[in-house]
């Protein structure tokens, strides 16, 4: 395998990992605050649909993004009301919202555009274009790093860079701010936070809202940057893969980056079986490559590779007084 091919695979990795990364960070905020969210998938799906629809109607990718985030926030709010306010089962609420998203997106898109639950193809400013980073062409002759910068780092949509920037931002918010400390505490021992006079409900709603925003960006990225419009079930299980990545990352921001990049890398490799065969000299079946991330996640869960300890109060609604 030559260097160019390797860079092409990394380029593909970054594109594939971006929605996973955003969804993974989304799940991280929610779960760190003690609210399990199986509904990442549904939030991404509604965001993809509304961003595709609004971007088409207004001709602006940014308005599409705003609409995607808004719809995703709506879904997050329903989850919050069910799981936090009414102390319902968080898993059931998430699953229900996923089903609702799956049906509603097709229904609304069909009613609005009559194209079989698809939104019309976007073009021009209705889509996020590819950004060329400064000096990409100038630095290209620099050995090794030049092509890496020009091929892999440059030439993505702005949402990819936003997603990458979210990793240090998440780390900083969670680990270095008062808000982050409280958020983590709410996920570990909500009673202690409550004793300190901080509203558990408010903290959890804040976390769920951040989850909504990040899922909204992930959905909009798929519909208005990677593709040119929404198609039914286009998230294709990425919300669940992100949950697996979250476990693999042991609920840590930097871990989320590496986990999703690894998952994305295996997906990208699966698209180039010729490369895999050339490197390993073994004919590895494509499904085996695709299954690798999940096998790794199971290994992590089983405790073979470090230990994955979920937030202690995760999944439990907080009851102030009995």
């Amino acid at each position, binding site marked *: 395998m030559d260097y160019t091919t390797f860079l092409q695979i990394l380029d*593909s990795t970054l594109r594939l990992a971006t929605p996973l990364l955003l969804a993974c960070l989304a799940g991280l905020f929610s779960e760190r605050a003690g609210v399990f969210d199986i509904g990442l998938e549904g939030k991404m799906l509604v965001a993809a649909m509304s961003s595709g629809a609004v971007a088409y109607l207004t001709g602006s990718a940014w308005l599409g993004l705003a609409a995607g985030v808004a719809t995703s926030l709506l879904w997050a709010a329903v989850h919050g009301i069910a799981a936090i306010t009414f102390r319902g089962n968080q898993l059931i609420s998430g699953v229900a919202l996923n089903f609702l998203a799956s049906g509603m997106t097709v229904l609304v898109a069909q009613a609005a555009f009559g194209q079989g639950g*698809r939104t019309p193809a976007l073009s021009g400013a209705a889509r996020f274009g590819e950004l060329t980073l400064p000096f990409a062409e100038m630095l290209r002759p620099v050995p090794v790093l030049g092509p890496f910068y020009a091929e892999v780092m440059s030439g993505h949509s702005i949402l990819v860079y936003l997603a990458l920037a979210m990793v240090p931002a998440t780390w900083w918010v969670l680990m270095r701010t008062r808000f982050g400390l409280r958020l983590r505490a709410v996920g570990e021992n909500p009673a202690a936070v409550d004793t300190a006079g901080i509203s558990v409900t408010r903290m959890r709603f804040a976390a769920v809202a951040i989850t909504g925003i990040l899922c909204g960006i992930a959905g909009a990225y798929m519909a208005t940057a990677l*593709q*040119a419009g929404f198609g*039914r079930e*286009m998230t*294709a299980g990425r919300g669940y893969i992100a949950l697996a990545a979250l476990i693999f990352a042991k609920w840590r921001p930097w871990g989320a980056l590496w986990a999703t990049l690894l998952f994305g890398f295996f*997906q*990208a490799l699966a698209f180039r079986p010729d490369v895999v065969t050339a490197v390993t000299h073994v004919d590895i079946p494509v499904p085996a490559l695709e299954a690798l991330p999940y096998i790794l996640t199971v290994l992590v869960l089983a405790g073979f590779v470090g230990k994955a300890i979920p937030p202690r109060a995760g999944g439990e609604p907080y009851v102030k007084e009995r």
Partner: protein
Amino acid sequence: MTIKPLLAAAVTLTLSATATLADPALIFDLGGKFDKSFNEAANEGALRWKAETGGNYREIEMQSEAQREQALRRLAQAGSNPIVMTGFSFADVLTQVAPEFPDTRFVIIDAIVDQPNVRSIVFSEEEGSYLAGIMAAMSSKTDTVGFIGGMDIPLIRKFGCGFAQGVIATKPDAKMLISWTGSTPAAWNDPVRGGELARAQISQGADVIYAAAGGTGIGILQTAADEGILSVGVDSNQNALHPGSVLTSMVKRVDVAVEEAFNEGADMTGGVEVLGVANKGVVVAMDENNSSLVTPEMQAAVEEATQKLASGEIVSHDYMSDDSCPIAGF
């Protein structure tokens, strides 16, 4: 007495119900009836029948695998006749259900079910794909042509095999790239994955990509248009999705098959019907959207191959006949 008028009303109801019972029915597979592809073609056929005859028909869209048997039984019990279903996935279910309703006629498209009251309609996709392969090979400047199939199943391999033969017959040293979008039904609805696969093939030099992948194909055609290469659509005429980028579409006249079945109604005969290039059951779409891409030589080559395929002078290998495709290496 009030019972009598009630009874009379009930009788009239039953009668009027029986009168509408002979309506045909159409069941769409998981892709949904507006998939811009296979199911949509079936829908067009049914709508045309409705417009021409003024008749009515029932329709159901499958939402999950588990619904197939139930939907089929419901329609048969309600008296719909004939019942047309699109998609090979119905084969197993129909084999069980058909004997239970001997008076009902069933039509299955894309699979063969050996029952007296079932008409099985299969298309010679390998012939249509062969023609698409000729056009792809003639348009390719890099001599590298890609095929992206949906879920990896024999039916889709049949498309790939015919396509590869058309390419190799035209340019013997052309390179064929073959990928699948997955091994689960989710592989039909993942345009992002399709786009990424197309990029992977483009980075290996492909400049014409044939997408036989349902909803995932939309993403493949989009990426091909974004990256400035050519693509080949499938099932329905997809030329208009990206005018000037979609070289042609390998069209299966599912609409004609559905319309015919509806027209014949309850007296339809069973058996296997094969639609190929000879009876125009599969064609490569030519219209104003791809006229700038199709050269006269290409058109001549396609016409020549069509005649040879029809006369049997060229035999396009059917993957499903022996589960192998020597020319494409799978």
